């Protein structure tokens, strides 16, 4: 489990105006909370440092030694990262203080390894879930899980129960939840044109009329 140092400054001003000014100066507004903190503490982080931390192999699942100016060091994790919908830049971060002896729930990414046997027959690897929820101590959080799909043919899948979990880890998701499956390719169906729909309706109407006439004759 990686542990990274991050420095922060406390901020007094809140709201969209001060937050925008912070972002323009290369900082990211953030909030810190947890069981050891009364309420929430508003802080600001360095945008470049933050971007580096969030691009580690573990994604956002890293323990951070947060050093807020004028306060004691805290061990925190990223609870939520808000990104700009168009630019993708980090807009705001939620940090959660964690206690090292308390179990916590985290989402760990699942990576697919190998080339599935079903691909030779035209199958497509469809990853239904990219993360699974696990419960563990902060020091035991894995970077990711590797799932080998080599033996999978078309129509076969791997589930949460197929992931080998180390000691001290417990999966919180349904054991039968599908992670990856090899699906058969779907043939393209040409959409019906308005004329085709009208012709079908007319045909069905004629058939009904004929059936009515036959009934009347009988």
């Amino acid at each position: 489990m990686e542990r990274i140092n991050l420095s922060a400054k406390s901020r007094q001003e809140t709201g969209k105006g001060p937050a925008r000014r912070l972002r323009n100066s290369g900082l990211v507004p953030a909030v810190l909370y947890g069981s050891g903190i009364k309420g929430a503490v508003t802080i600001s982080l360095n945008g470049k440092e933050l971007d580096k931390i969030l691009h580690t192999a573990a994604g956002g699942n890293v323990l951070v030694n947060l050093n807020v100016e004028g306060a004691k060091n805290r061990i925190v994790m990223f609870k939520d990262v808000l990104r700009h919908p168009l630019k993708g830049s980090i807009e705001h971060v939620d940090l959660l203080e964690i206690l090292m002896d308390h179990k916590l729930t985290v989402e760990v990414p699942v990576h697919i390894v190998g080339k599935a046997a079903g691909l030779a027959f035209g199958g497509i690897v469809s990853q239904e879930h990219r993360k699974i929820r696990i419960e563990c101590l902060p020091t035991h959080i894995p970077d990711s899980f590797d799932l080998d799909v080599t033996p999978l043919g078309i129509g076969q899948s791997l589930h949460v129960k197929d992931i080998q979990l180390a000691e001290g880890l417990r999966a919180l998701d349904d054991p039968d939840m599908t992670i990856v499956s090899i699906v058969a390719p779907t043939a393209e169906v040409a959409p019906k044109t308005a004329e085709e729909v009208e012709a079908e309706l007319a045909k069905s109407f004629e058939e009904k009329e004929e059936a009515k006439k036959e009934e009347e004759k009988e």
Partner: protein
Amino acid sequence: MLMPKKVKFRKHQRGKRRGLATRGATLDFGNYGLKATECGWLSTREIEAARIAMTRFIKRGGRIWIRVFPDKPVTKKPAETRMGSGKGGPEDWVVVIKPGRILYEMEGVTEAIAREAFRLAAHKISIPTKFIQRESI
């Protein structure tokens, strides 16, 4: 073509398109996606034309998700009609797109194929778009 099965009101007001997309702005299904960079209305014909362009290019490999649904009716007055006498009849269905909205997603193909398929699809769409991909593939 995509359209609602039934609606509560046949004719809608046009509305505004200000702001950014707050929902449907992240990749949820596939590894690659097509993101709108400006706002506009996307009609059911455009959605279908872009889908056909993509599926023809990727042939039988890969999967495509359409992340938008046209549920807003657009009315139009008949040609050479004098103004007045009420609102025209429903002509088309559109979806209101705001910047940042994901229109399509794709999986099961290489990046080069996905890029080309989305380039072809973008030519069928009246809104400027950009190609995006998942950070950790």
